[in-house]
């Protein structure tokens, strides 16, 4: 299933910038405030919830396929090699009782980071595993979904809380790293992603459920 971003179309070009693996401040919108009209489509809330649910449903398969395509020792030693403790991953310290605004900002930070990291992983795998078509397709699809999700979160933050600027930290670029390190970094990010996306889906559910 594909989701069409329900957010405002001009945001997309801006959000593309966020794929670049740099640390810094993510601008949700240009200018000094949110657009005053036509910010969100009517189903943006439901669509956001579905996007997170879909990412949650596909994350484990993506991780497993990633491991398989890297070759040994990634599958057999994934606990050791893919341990994400050594990498940066945005903190996601919200729960179901957190304020909705807080949840939305945390979500934005999480998926902005993920979008950039998935971009890096996809680029690396295109170089290292160009014949792994299924993995590449899944990575592309997941990246597209996170992109749509960011667009929807952008419009929700603007519409509901007039937030148009969020500080986002991105992961380290894998450029220039060794083949093994590139594989390992992707593995670490995806493993953490599997853990966090489940939490995000649980947290987001009460906040985006139809009222």
């Amino acid at each position, binding site marked *: 299933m594909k989701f069409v971003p329900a957010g405002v179309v001009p945001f997309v070009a801006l959000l593309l910038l966020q794929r670049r693996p740099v640390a810094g401040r993510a601008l949700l919108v240009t200018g000094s405030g949110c657009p005053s009209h036509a910010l969100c489509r009517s189903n943006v809330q439901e669509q956001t919830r579905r996007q997170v649910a879909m990412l949650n449903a596909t994350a484990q398969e993506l991780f497993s396929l990633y491991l398989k*395509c*890297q*070759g*040994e*020792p*990634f599958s057999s*030693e994934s606990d050791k*090699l893919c341990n994400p403790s050594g990498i940066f991953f945005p903190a996601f310290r919200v729960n179901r009782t957190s304020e909705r605004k807080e949840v939305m900002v945390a979500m934005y930070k999480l998926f902005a980071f993920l979008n950039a990291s998935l971009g890096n992983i996809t680029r690396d795998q*295109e*170089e*290292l*595993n*160009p*014949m*792994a078509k299924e993995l590449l397709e899944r990575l592309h699809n997941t990246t597209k979904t996170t992109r749509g999700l960011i667009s929807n979160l952008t419009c929700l933050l603007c519409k509901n809380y007039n937030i148009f600027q969020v500080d986002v930290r991105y992961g380290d670029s894998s450029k220039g790293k*060794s*083949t*093994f*390190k590139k*594989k*390992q970094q992707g593995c670490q990010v995806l493993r953490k992603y599997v853990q966090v996306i489940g939490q995000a889906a649980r947290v987001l559910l009460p906040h985006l459920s139809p009222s």
Partner: protein
Amino acid sequence: MMNQFMILAVLLPLRTCYTTYSQQESDVFPVTYLNVSKDLDLQQLLVEWDVVKSAHDAELAMSFEIQVRRTDEATTVWTEFQNVTLEKLGKPLHWTWDSDIPLECMSHAVRIRSKAKTSKIWSQWSLWETLPGLDTSNRSGPQIFPKEKILAEGSDITLCCIGGKGQTIKEFSVFPTVDVFKHTNNQVRLLTVENLSHDKGSNIHVYCYDEDKRSHEAAFFVGKPPDTPKDFSCQTQDMKRVTCSWRDQETYLYGKNSPQYTLSKTSSQKTALCKASCSKQCSCSWNIGQQWIWNVTVTVENPLGKKTATDVFDVNHRPNSDFPLAVYPTAPFQVWEDCTDTEMTLHWNYENNEIELFCQTEVLQPDGKVELHNSSITDPRRITVRGLRPHTEYTARVRCGAANHFWRWSEWSQPLTTRTKEGTPSGKLDIWREITPVRGGRNVTLFWKQTPSFQANGKIISYEVTLKKIEDGSQPESISFSSVYNSTRIFIDNHSHRISIVAKNNANFSLPSVLIISRATDNSTEELKEGQVNGTDDGIFISWEPRSIYDSYIIDWCNFPRLQPCDLQWKRFGPNVSSAVISSAAFVPGVRYKFRIYGSVASRASLLEKKIGYLRELPPFHDPIVRKVDLTYNSVTLSWDSYLANESEPGFVRGYHVYVSPIQGNCNLKGSKKYILSANMLYFVLLLVIVPTLVAAICHWKMKWVKECCCPAIPSPNKSKVLSFKEFKIDSEKVLKINDCLPDMLAMDSNDEAHKLHPVTWSPLSSTPTEDKIDGHNSSWIYPSENVARDFPPTPKPQTHTCFENFAYSSPPEAESDPYQIPETLEAGKTNQAVVLYQPQCYIDIFHEDTASTTTETGERKNSLKYISQTDTCWLGGKL
């Protein structure tokens, strides 16, 4: 003096020895300079050294022995001798050594000694010149060497993992797991993988960690160096731009490591004409400008190697060129046509005006066949295709190739679909007629159809019927009908007429089809017998008596004989045919079809035979209704309405079955007796005889009871419920059960009045007397009497339990089944079927017990014999 001589004698050899030694020592030129460095990319030791200048000045030929030693190994790992003739310029000497393990893994040391070729004395060894490995550096974590790189399939590689200073390597592994040679040296671990293979995974991974769990990993791609490009060739489509192509080969290296191709002039390979990566197609193109002769090289390169292939071609496409450039013309375009009814001239254009081309046209026929036609070189832009069918759609396309040095065809042009013009219809219509006499003449219905051999050669727009009276030479009359019609009815008088029918399209008329209707005569053909024909799996089989005078035969029939119009059909046969299977999708079982067979000579048709038959016969729709049951003291007489002998019946009625059964237990056909009557029987007389003595004994024994029950004051057999067959039906067959009051005498009627039995005398219509087939009994006869049947008055009676069946479909009771009985009866019935009207009445012979039952059954009946009154009060409803 003597002593002096002695001294001299001793000293002289010593001096000689000294002089020799000094001379030899002066021929030794030890290494004066030694430097060792490394090229880590190539994993080579670079050794540079020199000797004294005098050796250079003397341009001595020298030998050098070079030794290489690793720090962890006590012995020298490499020894090599180098023979060099020194130059006056005094340049230092160089030697390189390829290390089989990464130079980073450990320290390497080199020493050299020398010897002049003319000398036998080696110089002293130089001091070891050591190149330290990374094992001596102050690093913290483990490190794997060599660094990640592309490895050639089939090669061997030795890897090392160097621990940090003072650290011990705990594990050093390669994935996927392969056989390796491991060398251990506390801080440095070595392993060698032999015969590298790409199919062990996308990468070879190496993993190493030390006692502090610090790790280092590396990944290596394994692939193949490129092979020489195969099938390298160049071509042009327009003589302006050349495209060279070749075949790619698998290297198992992808992305940035995949083979890169560069095309260049062989004479100047640094300047690329074009580049390609073979991701989709291995080709690249460039503009040839004014250069005619080309010598080009394609170079393929990947991280593991480089290969080249060359091609030479002459762009000037002369016939005598030794190496002409292959021409692959562009597809022809602007294809258009010019048609007649049988010819099509195709015209086209193409871009390759500089090259002499010849072209080929493919014409797709309506039947799917393809024909190829080559154009002439003198007229390469046009071709005429002949022998086409009129008013037929053809699809054509064109391709071209170089007339000189043909290499390959161009792509096909866009297909052109066109239709030839209409032509004169070929062949004749198949025509037929149906004649109905009417007052003052005849109504003739004319039919026509297109046979497979008839070619309309266009769109038929009308049919023209021309009628001409033969005798009086009157002017013919013509009527035109639209193409939607295939029949018409005309009236003609009783004279002979000649009728012709032609089909007309936009081009012309077809040849006329003629039939002649002879003068009407009184010889009615209706009196011809209607023979019966049989259905087969394929249709209805019809045969006729051949006559030599006819040049053809025609069979006509109605597809829907019960409708009007009945959809008359006809079929023609040659003079040597005397049978045919007529099939039609309209034929259904249970419908009687009539076939008329005509002989035709000189367009005059004469009716020869008539046939009737079914595709498959079906059982009668209804059981016959028994109209009358007359019972005497020893006989029962049945009469019923006969089936109509016309086409309304779903099969030929060949006879009737009458079942006679005693009442014993349940009423069913088991134990009953079947009497088979030919369909042409009017009366069936059956007399059933019971052993008189038995009856007499019973009657005498139960005289009083018999009298009360069977012989009421006014006894009437017709009132007996015993013989009532109302509502008595078993297995779809009605059963007449003869109870204990069985008739005991046989009588036979020829009309209303019963008459005495006499032997059968068969009329010619009945070829075989049909009778009850019970052996040893001639007390049952069947009388084919047409007159009696007509005179027989239908008498309304209660319906009797009588089973009537069409022999073709009836399944007789198993106890009565006689495989020889039915065919005989069928034969008899068949002979008389068509001409006899019948209204049968049956007399059943019950006089002899064997007539109606088997011995066993008779015994049972004897045991159960009892006299039952035939009045209502005596009705044993539960039993019958």
